[in-house]
């Protein structure tokens, strides 16, 4: 007796159930990011959001992307964001977010957009999309370094430009404070 392919009674496949759970976590944590008032907690909720997204990537058969998501977005980018926030906190600055004055219009706009997108997704015949493709690392590497080698190199140029800019902005002048 193997575990059935679908959830008993409501006939929901396990993958779909996982998808529902992960999406719920994703949307919930994304909402927390914009509604929480403590900016550090916002950042932590963002990490949860990224983790749920990584789970979704695994679910559609892209574990490499998922691992990269965790490694880069949670392990590096979010940490650096939190790092910067913690480092620049001063006693003068408000510890809690105070500029959520347009929450209501934003919420209405977001709800309308969500409704439109839901309508769109439901009404469109996504003919180009078929069953999820299992992307192996080797295949991905071949595509990346053959078909998409120019974008790959351009991304490195983009990062170089960003690094130069970042260093310039963060650099302290030789004499006197920045």
């Amino acid at each position, binding site marked *: 007796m*193997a575990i059935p392919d679908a959830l008993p009674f409501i006939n929901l496949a396990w993958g779909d159930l996982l998808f529902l759970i992960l999406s719920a976590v994703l949307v919930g944590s994304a909402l927390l990011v914009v509604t929480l008032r403590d900016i*550090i907690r916002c950042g932590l909720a963002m990490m949860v959001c990224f983790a749920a997204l990584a789970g979704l990537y695994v679910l559609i058969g892209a*574990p490499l992307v998922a691992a990269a998501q965790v490694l880069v977005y949670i*392990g*590096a980018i979010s*940490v650096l964001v939190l*790092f910067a926030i*913690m480092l620049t906190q001063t006693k003068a600055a408000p510890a809690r977010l105070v500029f959520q004055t347009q929450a209501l219009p934003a919420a209405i706009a977001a709800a309308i957009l969500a409704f439109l997108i839901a309508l769109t997704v439901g009404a469109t015949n996504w003919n180009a999309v078929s069953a999820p493709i299992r992307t192996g690392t080797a295949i991905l590497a071949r595509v990346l370094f053959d078909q998409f080698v120019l974008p790959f190199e351009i991304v490195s140029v983009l990062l170089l430009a960003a690094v130069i800019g970042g260093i310039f902005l963060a650099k302290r002048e030789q004499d006197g404070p920045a």
Partner: protein
Amino acid sequence: MTVVGRTWERLTIPGKILAVVIPLGAVLTAGLAILIAVIGGAVVQFLVDNLPLVRFVVAATIVLLMTVPSAFLIIYMEMKVIALMNLRYGPDRVGPFGSALSVVHGLKVLMKEDFTPTGADVPVFTLAPVVVYMSSVMSLLVLPFAPGLFGQDFNIGLLYFFAMGGLTVVGLLMAGWSSFNKYSLLGGLRSAAQVISYEIPLTLSVVGVILLAGTMSLNQIVLGQAGNLFDWYIWRQPLAFVVFFIAVTAEANRTPFDLTEADSEIVAGFATEYSGMRFGFFFFAEYVNVFIASGLTVAVFLGGWNAPFNWPWPVAVGLDPGSLGIGLLLLLTLGPPLAIVVLGLPFYLLNSRIRFWQALIIGFGLFNVIAVAAVLGLAFLSFDWVVGLLWFMGKTYVFVFTFVWMRGTLPRVRIDQLMGFAWKWLLPAALLNLFVTAFAILVLNR
């Protein structure tokens, strides 16, 4: 008073306990036997049908459980080895040579008050140790201990490993922030800066190995090093090994890179405000990380569970216990008493001061040692994972010892030296290694 009552009165306290326990045990055993007979087949069938799932759950459980004893072992090792290096005795009270001290430490930590400072961000404060501990345990899941003995063999094992290892810093940052203490915050910030800086050379240094092995699966990487000592990747990637080992030391926040909890500068860093079992989780995670760092080094560069020379295993033991028939029963029932007497007799005969029952005790001890050795030897010869596990653990503990040794001897570096070293030396070295490896593969065409 009835007969039963009077008999009860006469029993000693152990007797009373036994009188209750034995019938209860008998009933329970019988019930269990019936239960197994009735639904055992179905349960076994269920487990067999869902083998991958069962395998995963079992592996996760074992990995989770093995962290505790290995952390105990490493903590004891650290206390004892550093003590010996300092010409002290070290732990010597609890257990033989103080070996149970870390267990007692664990119990002590468990019983302490679990204290939350005023002003702390309570949910974050509570979750931080969990995140740190879980990230260690989850990265342990892909470490190959022996042939066929690993939690899960991912295609992207190495990447997964680094991804999970990178989560530790999230926990440290959470701990540092939520403690509402500037030393904690400093420790958290230091760990974030340090771990992110060293993660880059760490990841880049293994890319050379990935190129050589053609895979990111840790199991496949170990398999690619089969053969003898000279098939290990350390010989083809010496620079990567050096970079990797330094970076992995920093990732595990070990001396000389233990700035996150530098006790002489910032009390205990992120762990300052923690007490009780929450501190225990940090403490355990740190030593589990030492084990993981050592194990990863061994798996990637030192052949994992491969023996350094061609080992003549597995030897097939051509003995089928079933063929002995009734003889097996006789051997099992009569063998041990006979062996105990035979082993004990020489002591009784050769030394007049030893009485016969004392000789029997010696014989019993000897028999057990021989029997355990025989069973282990048989297992060693029959199953390749046993010998693999022994090699892996042996190599790993050499590195664990190295970590302890470094803690005993090296001074702590300064934060600017730490960052400068990562970006100015390790990163270029890792890039150089990657470039040379790729170039060599291109030229030699493998």
